[in-house]
């Protein structure tokens, strides 16, 4: 906390007279900016060509997978709620690439397909879960919002807005209790950021110095409610200041910026300093879920994001500028299309769960 200490130690009441009248200065005092300052000193990760190519590939996988999921939903092969990650790919890819898969854990809400793909979980079993098949990662019993892979330390996939925040704090508690050196990354949206349990968790995580990174994926809309209509403080990275949790705000449309910020946050948390709150500014191109008519924003707004801020295009331009051949990039696109087509085929043709499965897994033990 050394870096943030100089601004945070002074209670606002004790601030110099002139300063208290200046909202910007007050804001500075509240922000616990040390981590952000360190991050801004070198705001983009120095990825090798190979690493950037890999990030590109993962982002394209998520994009194509989600597009196909949208199609399957339209065909009636996927039911219920289905929340697509299109537009936000750089967040999951940038963050999860920085984690140690042997130690660290991840938890998120219901917009979870991208996080699983970024973790290298087989697209076939994810897609088969979306279509409700026995081969799905939750054997068809969870669906889009409820997917887990304990092998990958991916703990869901939770359908109640904000519930993943205390659950993730509990995962962090377990890391600390065992002393296994792991860090939990708990993702939630700008909508979930207004849930009371989020702040209950912040308090305990800071009090007990738990190893957790809270990641607010600010995609600007909680369902149809723009952040300025729902949030008194729209700078979400400041939401931890009451608990002395340092905040970072990061361009969530730039995978290298995300990765770099993740490195900073992880180093801080791994050193035993307690939680970090990261706000990643991003944008979802599609509706909140497949059943969203999207009347709350203009086509032009969405188009502007796609045309000028798209993370995948951004990465592609950078790859080409670095001298990666167009051929190589196209090869990746082609390979991903094949993988996604195979996953969709598999998910469409895999059998539904046996009827006996209705009664299994209610309890673990027999009493």
């Amino acid at each position, binding site marked *: 906390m050394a870096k943030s200490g100089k601004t945070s130690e002074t209670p606002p009441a004790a601030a110099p007279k002139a300063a208290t009248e200046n909202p910007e200065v007050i804001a500075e005092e509240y922000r616990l900016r040390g981590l952000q300052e360190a991050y801004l000193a070198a705001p983009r990760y120095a990825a090798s060509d190979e690493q950037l190519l890999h990030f590109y590939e993962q982002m394209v996988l998520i994009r194509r997978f989600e597009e196909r999921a949208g199609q399957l939903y339209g065909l009636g092969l996927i039911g219920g709620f289905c929340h697509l990650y299109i537009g936000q790919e750089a967040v999951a890819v940038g963050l999860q690439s920085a984690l140690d898969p042997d130690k660290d854990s991840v938890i998120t809400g219901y917009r979870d397909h991208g996080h699983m793909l970024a973790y290298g979980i087989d697209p076939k079993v994810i897609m088969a879960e979306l279509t409700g098949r026995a081969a799905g990662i939750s054997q068809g019993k969870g669906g889009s919002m*409820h997917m887990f892979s304990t092998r990958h330390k991916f703990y869901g*996939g939770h359908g109640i807005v904000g519930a993943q925040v*205390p*659950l993730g704090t509990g995962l962090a*508690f377990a890391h600390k*209790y065992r002393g296994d050196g792991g860090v939990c990354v708990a993702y939630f949206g700008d909508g979930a950021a207004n849930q009371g349990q989020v702040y*209950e968790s912040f308090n305990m995580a800071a009090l007990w110095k738990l190893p957790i990174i809270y990641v607010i994926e600010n995609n600007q809309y909680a369902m149809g409610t723009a952040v300025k209509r729902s949030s008194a403080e729209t700078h979400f990275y400041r939401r931890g200041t009451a608990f002395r949790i340092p905040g970072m705000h990061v361009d969530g449309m730039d995978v290298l910026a995300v990765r770099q910020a993740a490195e900073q946050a992880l180093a801080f948390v791994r050193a035993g300093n307690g939680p970090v709150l990261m706000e990643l500014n991003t944008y979802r191109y599609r509706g909140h879920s497949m059943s969203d008519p999207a009347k709350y924003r203009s086509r032009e707004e969405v188009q502007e994001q796609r045309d000028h801020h798209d993370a995948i295009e951004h990465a592609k331009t950078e790859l080409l500028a670095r001298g990666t051949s167009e051929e190589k990039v196209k090869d990746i696109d082609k390979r991903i299309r094949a993988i996604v087509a195979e996953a969709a085929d598999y998910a469409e043709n895999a059998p539904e769960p046996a009827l006996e499965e209705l009664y299994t897994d209610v309890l673990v033990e027999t009493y």
Partner: protein
Amino acid sequence: MSVQLKMPALSPTMEEGKLAKWLVKVGDVVKSGDILAEIETDKATMEFEAVDEGTISSIDVAAGTEGVKVGAVIAVLDDGEEPAAEAKPASEAKAAEAPAAAAPAEPAPVAKPAEAPVPAAPTPAPAPTSGTNMKVATVREALRDAMAEEMRRDSRVFVMGEEVAEYHGAYKVTQGLLEEFGPERVIDTPITEYGFAGIGAGAAMGGLRPIVEFMTFNFAMQAIDHIINSAAKTNYMSGGQMRCPIVFRGPNGAAHRVGAQHSQNYAPWYASVPGLVVIAPFDAADAKGLLKAAIRSEDPVVFLENELIYGRSFELPELDDHVLPIGKARIMREGSDVTIVSYSIGVGLALEAAETLAAEGISAEVLDLRTLRPLDTAAVLTSLAKTNRLVVAEEGWPVCSIASEIVALCMEKGFDDLDAPVLRVCNEDVPLPYAANLEKVALIDAARIVAAVKQVCYR
């Protein structure tokens, strides 16, 4: 004139306590606010302050005396004033204020005995295992021992909740755990039920074995989303991949005179949820054996205790590892004419009723459900087949209750064995009132069970 100093009640349910220590002696001059003595209950140690000024003229209960009844005269203070004409009533009125000063919640001790289910319950149940040495222990001690033994056995087990560590538990159930296991495993939380229930559930998903104490289950309504949506459903939703082995425990149901928001039985709520195990023990042996089983279970368990039974003493088997099976009811008293099905505090009332009925020539079998989910339906139906008449006694609301469930079970699976309609004896269908007389009539009692039994026996 002399003022009698009486044993104060330090909590709504306190009936007696230990006079641990005198801080004054005969002849000492005291003024208002001076600490006179330390009083210990099974829950807490409290200081007893002087309300009046004067000289201690006698000390009537020696330091170290246990079982001093609330209201008993423990010392006399001479306030140096001449006795007025109506000396006696006046001084008594004054003395009666003394306990109130020490304890904000003052029960009316005189009004209590009739209604309290505490008086010596009829000999409960045959010993669970013959040939085992038994010791006497309170339910509170049994619960504490269960947690301590499991924490010694499995380093993944920890306990968290409000006031569980440094305060030793709001109801002293976790007493001594902090000293033995340290602050890493006995964790005081802020007052933030939703948050710490979620943290507990997440820690369980991450491989630990949390025991989450709710100060009372009334406060768990703040956390019920995590109990149900996070803990109960995850194993199913993940196709059996992600477990949540956690115990949510704490007192449930009505205490004494704490009003509607602090007096509710949540057993039917939790027992309706697939994915949960729900346990509500009555005596010390079950409290210990079932809590140990709950901690070892791979499933999320809601463990419903009862404040009014914490201090009651029962025989407890002296075994190295007393673990009982979950999902098994227990015949507490054998009978042939009628079955009384109950759980938790209702079992004590049912046994009391059975004793009364025996004197009137009705032989009642008392069945303690112990586990409410999964329900031991076979035990209920077997007993029904034997007695052909059944009454359910439940300290809780009647609508959509455990009692309703038992009635449905008897209709669906035991209809041919029934010689009379099954009756429910529950609390009145109102939020629990505060006034002593209203509270008394709102709550189930043995007399009502007796009346219902007579009705189904056509007597």
